[in-house]
């Protein structure tokens, strides 16, 4: 028995020793950076991969491991990734609505001192606004996107419509004609699923009616008559069969799929939908998509509002916990450099102001087949990008608004009642 006892003890000691040996420091290897980004708006994963491989070729001491997930899953991936020990990511794409929360959470490294004078003067100030809090910069601007209003030229032509709508009321008139003529069963498509997409579309509509999220005192104002009118209009287009009823469960990818399948005449989406609609390998409508400035409501137009969209910009944040901030910054600087952004500008236009002037503008327009159309569309639409609230509890506030909009759209509550309840929730959240 004593022998058995001794053998057991020896085996256990050996097992512990072997497992400890696994923790011994290894020979010097390239630094591996884990970076999270979206597989949705902006450039495609294959293109980001190519940029990463180009960077690795120039920097053999750094290895880049990219991870791609749908936009709607990134926030929660960051939160869970940062709870891991060690944290899962060295850098991540950060949407314009997250910096307040993430700065409060301590996730983001203050990179103010890494921003060079060239970056400061060269990059659009609007791109910096998304990652600047209390005078400090918490990320590298990357993607300047807004929601665009796109239409199918052929369908409008078939319907005898000569120009795209300037107001949402005109859109309804045109959609009715298209529906009546049997050109499209549901002429309009939106991303109104219970996610951030519906808040983005509502932002464009709300501001286009002269509304705002909060008033001058910071109190919710989206439930006043401007917001209620916008939501009532959304519901009416569903009731009239003009908006595709599947919009209530659609994200931006579904909107794109319907548009490029030739099912919808009008679609509100991010820039990348245009390149996909011209990709003959997957689109039924190559050459038929066109941009128009995002319409506004007639009341908004009368008040002097020319267009109204939503800012969907994003940046790359360096995680405060990364042991390799210099290497991460080196990669992010490369990823967002003028040269790389111009080369990969089919679905995502550069953040550099000079690219839109003089000879550089000519070069940018020639960089991809779609740029002659998308560059002017961007220059026309981006100035009308409206912001969603910048608060640390944004996600919960947004969820309350998503619920309210969906309750109104599915007929569970009146637009007024639904928005009042969301506003009450916002007040409650602000008080906590």
């Amino acid at each position, binding site marked *: *028995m*004593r022998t*058995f*006892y001794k053998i*057991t*003890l020896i085996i*256990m000691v050996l097992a512990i020793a072997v497992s400890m040996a696994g923790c011994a420091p290894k020979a010097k290897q390239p630094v591996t950076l884990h970076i999270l980004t979206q597989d949705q708006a902006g450039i495609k994963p294959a293109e980001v991969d190519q940029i990463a491989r180009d960077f690795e070729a120039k920097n053999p001491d750094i290895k880049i491991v990219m991870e791609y997930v749908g936009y*709607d899953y990134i*926030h*929660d991936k960051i*939160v*869970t990734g*940062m*709870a891991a020990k060690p944290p899962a990511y060295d850098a991540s794409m950060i949407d314009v609505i997250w910096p307040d*929360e993430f700065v*409060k*959470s*301590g*996730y983001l490294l203050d990179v103010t001192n890494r921003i060079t004078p060239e970056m400061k003067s060269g990059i659009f100030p609007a791109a910096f606004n998304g990652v600047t809090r209390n005078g400090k910069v918490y990320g590298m601007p990357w993607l300047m996107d807004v929601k665009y209003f796109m239409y199918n030229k052929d369908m409008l032509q078939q319907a005898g419509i000569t120009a795209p709508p300037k107001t949402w009321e005109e859109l309804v008139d045109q959609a009715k004609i298209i529906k009546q003529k049997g050109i499209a*069963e549901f002429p309009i498509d939106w991303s109104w*699923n*219970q*996610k951030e997409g519906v808040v983005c579309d509502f932002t464009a509509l709300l501001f286009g009616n002269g509304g705002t999220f909060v008033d001058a005192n910071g109190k919710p104002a989206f439930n006043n008559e401007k917001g209620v009118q916008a939501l009532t209009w959304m519901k009416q287009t569903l009731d009239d069969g003009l908006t*595709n*009823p*599947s*919009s*209530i*469960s*659609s994200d931006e990818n*579904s909107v794109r*799929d*319907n548009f490029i*399948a030739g*099912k919808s005449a009008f679609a509100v989406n991010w820039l990348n939908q245009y390149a996909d609609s011209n990709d003959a390998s997957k689109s039924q409508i190559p050459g038929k998509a066109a941009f128009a400035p995002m319409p506004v409501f007639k009341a908004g137009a009368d008040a002097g509002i020319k267009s109204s969209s939503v800012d969907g910009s994003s940046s790359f944040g360096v995680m*405060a*916990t990364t042991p390799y901030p210099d290497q991460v910054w080196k990669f992010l600087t490369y990823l967002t450099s003028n040269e790389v952004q111009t080369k990969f500008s089919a679905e995502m236009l550069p953040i550099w102001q000079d690219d839109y002037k003089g000879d550089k503008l000519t070069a940018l327009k020639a960089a991809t087949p779609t740029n002659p159309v998308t560059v002017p569309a961007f220059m026309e639409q981006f100035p009308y990008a409206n912001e969603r609230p910048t608060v640390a*509890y944004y*996600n*919960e506030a947004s*969820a309350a608004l998503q*619920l309210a909009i*969906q*309750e109104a*759209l*599915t*007929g*569970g509550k009146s637009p007024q009642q639904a928005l009042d309840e969301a506003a009450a929730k916002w007040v409650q959240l602000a008080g906590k």
Partner: protein
Amino acid sequence: MAANSSSIPKRRASLRRQDARVAWLLLIPSLAVILGVTLWPIIYTFILSFFNAPTGINQIRTFVGLGNYIDMLKDRTFWETVGRTLYFTVVSVGLELILGLAVAQLIHSHPWGWQFLRFSLIIPWAVPTIVNGAMWRWIYSADFGALNGILMQLGLIKHYVPWLTLPNTAMNLVILADIWHTMPFVALILQAALATLPEELNEAAMIDRANAWQRFWYVRLPLLRPAILVVLIVRTVEAFRVFDIVYIITSGGPAFKTITITYLTYLNTFSYGKQGTGAALSFLISIFTIMMALIFIRFLYRPEETR
């Protein structure tokens, strides 16, 4: 002799002590794993549930006592979600049990091709829930879905129906996907239990002129009670904690009509950054599931049947 006889028990006692020492030594690794992987997270979550604990690095946690529990129990959304989760649990487990029992009985009667049937049952169950959810989301797709395609070809609908946008239908469609995925598990367990029942009882009942239904209802079903109890406990606990299939098919929409209690926990913990609330919700879920398991045991467990 006397000295000899008294030394034997002493030696035995010493061996027992040594045995006990070795036993404890051997148990240490597994105890450490259980403590680290199972017990500690539970204890940690329990402690967390009494704090206001925002997500983040070096966040200050403030003790709120039972505040998180009271906030939830006072919240209308919480009770609506509990009701919705109970609906999911009762309907999906109920239908799985009925269908599973029917399929198990069918296999047990050994019709032509029963082995193929039993083998093919494993496929839906073997498919990971995430894949299952993604598959059913495409089947239900309003614009490109197979369900709409089939119903159109059969002439049952004139227009594609946006199934997942219908508030009263969406949850039932998620339940259908869950049944497709999990019913085979129920069927296989019950079929295995059926195979162990003594054939003599069935034959005796046949001699007594009991018809097929009577033989099933009065002879086999009571004997299946222990297996049904296992299935009910396992499936009810699983169904009450449903998350992944909802996350993939509907993301809780439309208008929160498919949000379940675990989904609410996920939202609070990760999307809203309220770990304390999430921890409190986790414990409330545990209390609900334990209560349900106890109810089943109280009404279905007959110790004499398992002897």
